[in-house]
């Protein structure tokens, strides 16, 4: 009886929890609601509901092209990050070598460095190399900053995996590569795929670093949105944001089905 009492949330705790939930959801809800306004400026509350600002997106070619650029950038950088992070994760998880901790720390370091500092460094680097405005260069730096996410999820999948099946394949004559592709890769696929989706989202959402290297021809959606929000009150930002919220929720469901959202968000093993 007494155990049960301390195991339950009291009324004050529940009230606190409800208030916090409101605090967390309020800014997202308000964006979605404001996007259906028919006014010329962002207003809450409003009287007339309309889809005007959704039609307006279609009349803003620079937002549409920024959207597709962000999609291509996120797709390419998440893929490149997986290509380099999966072998690195295998090296770190399965080998004991001198410098292993240093390699791990180096590959995780983009998470520690402020993105403003990375943005500054890439801006300088691109201008020296003549890469300013290059989509390919943006893919490289986006891949770099999302590698830690891919590495972390792939490592979690490799660590604790039995090597029996792989050893059996090898002793039956499979080459290293075949053993990897047919045995190991399918086993770690949930981690790799979950990492890919997380990298995609991180790249798609990245604004602080990208704002330094984006040029008029390589403006991503968050950067375009940032400029519109920071300098004028433009209701089309609310409809674009609503599309982004809906898109993220869809991706969250995908992530939940592939690896489990708790694993991605909390880092549970």
């Amino acid at each position, binding site marked *: 009886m*007494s155990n049960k009492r*301390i195991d339950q*949330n009291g009324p004050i*705790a*529940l009230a*606190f*929890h409800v208030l*916090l*939930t409101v605090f*967390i*959801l*309020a*800014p*997202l809800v*308000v*964006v979605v609601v*404001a996007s259906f306004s028919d006014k010329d400026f962002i207003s*809450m509350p409003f009287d007339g509901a309309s889809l005007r600002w959704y039609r307006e997106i279609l009349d803003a070619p620079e937002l549409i092209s920024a959207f597709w650029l962000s999609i291509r950038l996120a797709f390419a950088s998440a893929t490149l990050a997986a290509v*380099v992070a999966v*072998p*690195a994760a295998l*090296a770190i998880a*399965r*080998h004991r*070598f001198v410098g292993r901790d240093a390699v791990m720390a*180096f*590959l995780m*370091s983009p998470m*520690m460095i*402020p*993105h*403003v*500092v990375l943005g*500054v*460094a890439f*801006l*300088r680097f691109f201008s020296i190399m003549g890469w300013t405005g290059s989509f390919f260069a943006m893919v490289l730096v986006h*891949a*770099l900053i999302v*590698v830690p996410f891919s590495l972390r999820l792939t490592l979690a999948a490799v660590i604790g995996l039995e090597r029996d099946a792989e050893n059996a394949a090898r002793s039956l004559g499979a080459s290293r590569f075949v053993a990897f592709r047919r045995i190991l890769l399918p086993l770690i696929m949930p981690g790799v795929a979950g990492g890919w989706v997380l990298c995609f989202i991180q790249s*798609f*959402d990245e*604004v*602080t670093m990208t*704002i330094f290297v984006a040029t008029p021809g390589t403006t991503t959606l*968050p950067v375009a*949105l*940032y400029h519109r*929000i*920071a300098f004028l009150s433009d209701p089309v930002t*609310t409809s674009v*944001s609503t599309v*982004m*919220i809906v898109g*993220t929720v869809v*991706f*969250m469901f995908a992530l939940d089905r592939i690896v489990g*959202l708790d694993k991605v968000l*909390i*880092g549970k093993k």
Partner: protein
Amino acid sequence: MADAALRQSSAPWLLSLPSLLLFVGLLAVPMALTAVLSFHVFEGMRGIQPTFTIANYVQVLTDGYYYELFLRTGLMSLGVTAICVLIGVPETLILAKMRPALQGTFFVVILGPLLISVVVRTLGWQILLGRQGPVNSALLSLGLVEEPVRFLYSMTGVVIVLTHVLLPFMIVAIWSALQKLDGQVAHAARSLGAGPITTFRRVVLPQLMPGILSGAIIVFTLAASAFATPAIIGGRRVKVVTTAIYDEFLTSLNWPLGAAIAIMLLIAIVAVVLGSNRLVERRFKQVFA
């Protein structure tokens, strides 16, 4: 035989090679170039000069303007961290007591926003906190304030929004400490006659401390490196280190000075992380030794 051993020892390096190439070429080299850039001379008319100077650092370290800038950023980050602890600890404990199904739902509600662009979340707050926005209308109609509160372009607004953006990181950190906590110890304290406050202060809180501290380090560093939120909510009135760097690079075009401020920010953040890690180790050696 020797060949096999060699292959064995080179395998991890071959596997890490692609990632290391990417990181040396696109992280180590650009960071080194930025460090070099920060020592270049800048002249308003002619731009970056090939001569070297420590004037940029002298300016950042001695000019009261930059001192205030770093102080403001530090206090802002400290404030956000403190509020995240005060909200995060009770909320994590509440989550821990929920039925598993509800717990899963609220984890998605609380942590899900992490995956939504920070620009979108900040736009939501810009609408909420406006002069005639929902928050001010609510405060006015409840009679809590006489006239609209100025949240936008104020430190209060920036702290509120950064708390919203960074709270999930605190909750995740405390949650992982809580998973290691033995719930029976709290029960034991209660059944031995300790009140709920004593139990919390003497039993639960000390065990959560490692999680709170690691959450605090994450939240502090992310607050000090945040850009979009202070830029949109704080605007030009509440300048922080990151927005100052942005202005040097893209408005004043004084890249060497901007690079010097960026390097100082990086050093400050690394110092805070290493310093608090050592503090944590010392403290917990005392507790657990």
